[in-house]
């Protein structure tokens, strides 16, 4: 390989690392708007990786996939999520179930686990960037951890989307020779994204209270929402005497 592609490979590794960094950002971030931003950024990294792989391997269809990701995950889904958050006044998400240091520690252990698991697989595969697999795997696991450690449905959805970003990254890094898988991945991607959003929008018309994970909120859940622990967006109510 020439120098240029060496740099390209290193760039892919770097971008994978940035993607993992953003996954950690998602894990520790408390505010929903920031979560969405991070997700959009992570998707953007994915777009760059995909196009880079496409350029390095000369597979044109990857450009298409990158463009699809760009439109769907960098623009459409974040915008929809933003609107959802604004509409439902969910800016604050004090919904972490596990304390932050514990979450971090678990994340660290998952990274070690992922790296250890990825090593033999990466040696088997003929991937262009073998290290990327481990990092992507770590990203998936961290996304999973985030999903477990959050109580709000919307953060869980973002965690799921981040996880799916990790899957996509791993797929791009490992199976760049199998375009069908990637295409299929994108198709499933779109489907899931639309489905989730559809469910959300359906709920949006229904009631704000039922956005708690675990179905429609019970009366106690409603009480908790308005309690001091989960501050409801505060808008001074006014009254005309």
């Amino acid at each position, binding site marked *: 390989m020439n120098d240029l592609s060496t740099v390209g490979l290193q760039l892919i590794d770097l971008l994978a690392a940035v993607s993992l960094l953003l996954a950690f950002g998602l894990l520790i971030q*408390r*505010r929903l708007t920031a979560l969405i931003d991070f997700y959009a950024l992570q998707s953007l990294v994915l777009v760059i990786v995909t196009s880079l792989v496409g350029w390095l391997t000369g597979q044109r269809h990857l450009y298409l996939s990158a463009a699809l990701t760009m439109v769907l995950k960098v623009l459409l889904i974040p915008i929809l999520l933003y609107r959802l958050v604004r509409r439902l006044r969910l800016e604050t998400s004090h919904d972490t179930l596990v304390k932050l240091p514990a979450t971090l520690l678990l994340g660290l252990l998952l990274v070690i686990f992922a790296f250890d698991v990825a090593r033999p697989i990466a040696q088997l595969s003929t991937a262009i960037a073998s290290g990327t697999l481990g990092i992507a795997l770590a990203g998936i696991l961290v996304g999973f951890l985030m999903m477990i450690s959050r109580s709000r449905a919307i953060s869980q959805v973002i965690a799921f989307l981040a996880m799916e970003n990790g899957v996509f990254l791993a797929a791009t890094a490992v199976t760049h020779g199998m375009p069908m898988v990637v295409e299929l991945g994108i198709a499933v991607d779109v489907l899931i994204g639309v489905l989730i959003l559809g469910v959300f929008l359906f709920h949006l018309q229904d009631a704000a209270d039922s956005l708690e994970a675990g179905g429609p909120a019970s009366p106690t859940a409603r009480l908790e929402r*308005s*309690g*001091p622990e989960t*501050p409801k967006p*505060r808008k001074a109510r*006014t009254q005309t005497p």
Partner: protein
Amino acid sequence: MEPSTGDSRPMQGGAPTHDRTSASPPALLIRQAFPSARPMGGELATYHLTATQAQWSMAAAAISSDAGNRPESPSRLIALWGASDADGRPLASAVYGLADGLLWVDLPLDPQSRQYPDLSRAFFFAGRMQRAIFDLGGLRAIGADDVRPWLVHARDADARSPATDYPFVRVSGAGVHEIAVGPVHAGIIEPGHFRFSVSGEKVLRLEARLGYKHKGIDARYTQLDPILAGRLAGRVSGDSTVAHAWAYCMALESAAGIELPPRAAWLRALMLERERVANHLGDLGALANDAGLAFGLAHFSRLRELWLRESDALYAHRLMMDQVIPGGVLVDLDASMVPRIGQACRSMAEEVQRLRAIYDEHPGLQDRFRGTGTISTALARQLGMTGLAGRASGLGRDLRHDHPGQPWSALSVHLCLSSQGDVAARVAIRFDELLESLRLIEAIASRLPPGTHHRALRLPQGHHCGAGAVEGWRGEVLVGLEIEVKGDRSRIVRCHSHDPSWQNWPALEHAIIGNIVPDFPLINKSFNLSYAGHDL
């Protein structure tokens, strides 16, 4: 309404009754007990009566039990002070707020024993007022728990005796230590000493030691001409000069029994709202700065400066000092200024909205604000909080809204309320009130009634009492006044200015509990209480 659910809801029916005929239970009770009580003249219905010791205690018990039994009850103690009447006999005075107005109870005391029944068991924050009363006039509350000096410091009391530390309440237990802050602070703020009992960063108790700015305002009033004393009232607390001056003028006008020209009332309201806007702007900047966001300070300081310059242009004084005078206001508003004011208000509202969005979206700032220095509605009621801090804790009291005289009745003031009671709530209330004030200013300026802005005040012969209460930016400012006019000689027999800081200072000590030491400046700033107005 059930405030304990923590939800913020509009005040609905029942609570503030504006129908003067259907009085709340304590008001009825008291009217039965004191058939002689009659409302004084003036904008605010004020019942003034002289009580015996039994009646004094009965009134306190009735009002405090009403406040304790009905969560929405507006009954409260507003002010408590000691004075001497025209003959030099000691008097204890208390002013209560009731649904249909104020109740002013005077208790003549025995000149020898100089004692009066304790109110601090019924009203928590009365303890400090009673200690101040003792320091100023030697009147002692019978049965009060806390008899430490309040305004008088050890060194003032006896310069020869060795100076000793104030007997702060000591938290016993392993490893409790103290942090002493003040009276001189590194920033340019008023003097006050704060003693924290802490374990590491965890605050176990806070006690404030005030009185460093005691100037003897009440005594000074009695040496001044009633008309001129308005200037002194305007200097009780510089940041609420309009509110204090208006309260004084209202008291004097009610004592004199004159009706204020409508235009004067509207102009006063304009200034009061301008003062509210200026202070809220300053506080919002300072709050961000105390949370380490200098950006907020820079922009709110800029807005405040623009606003003060505008005031300077309108009144030739940045703080509008000495603009409220007995009988009206000093300067009329030129009609040509009205569009300019409206324009300034609109652009200010726009900028404030933009900054509010930044505040609301800033993760670091919100993290500092939310859940910090929380006072629940129940605790706020127990402490008898008032004003802005009270409204942030769900106590929906606002004189402009509850007892709308001129011009408030015509303006339909919105009550800004939150039940969270944390710093974030106090910030949100400031933003809401700021925008509401800007709306009011524009409305007042455009709908100013015609007529004179000042009517010369002629004081009637004899003894007259008057009370004035104004919703300043911090809370209700109250002035109780008795004048004596003999021939062309008039004098103030007694006068007391009450600042809402009295009610809210003790709340600060509760707000810090469960927080950590470095959050105190932020919590303190979110209350932003007056030292000067409190120490008098």
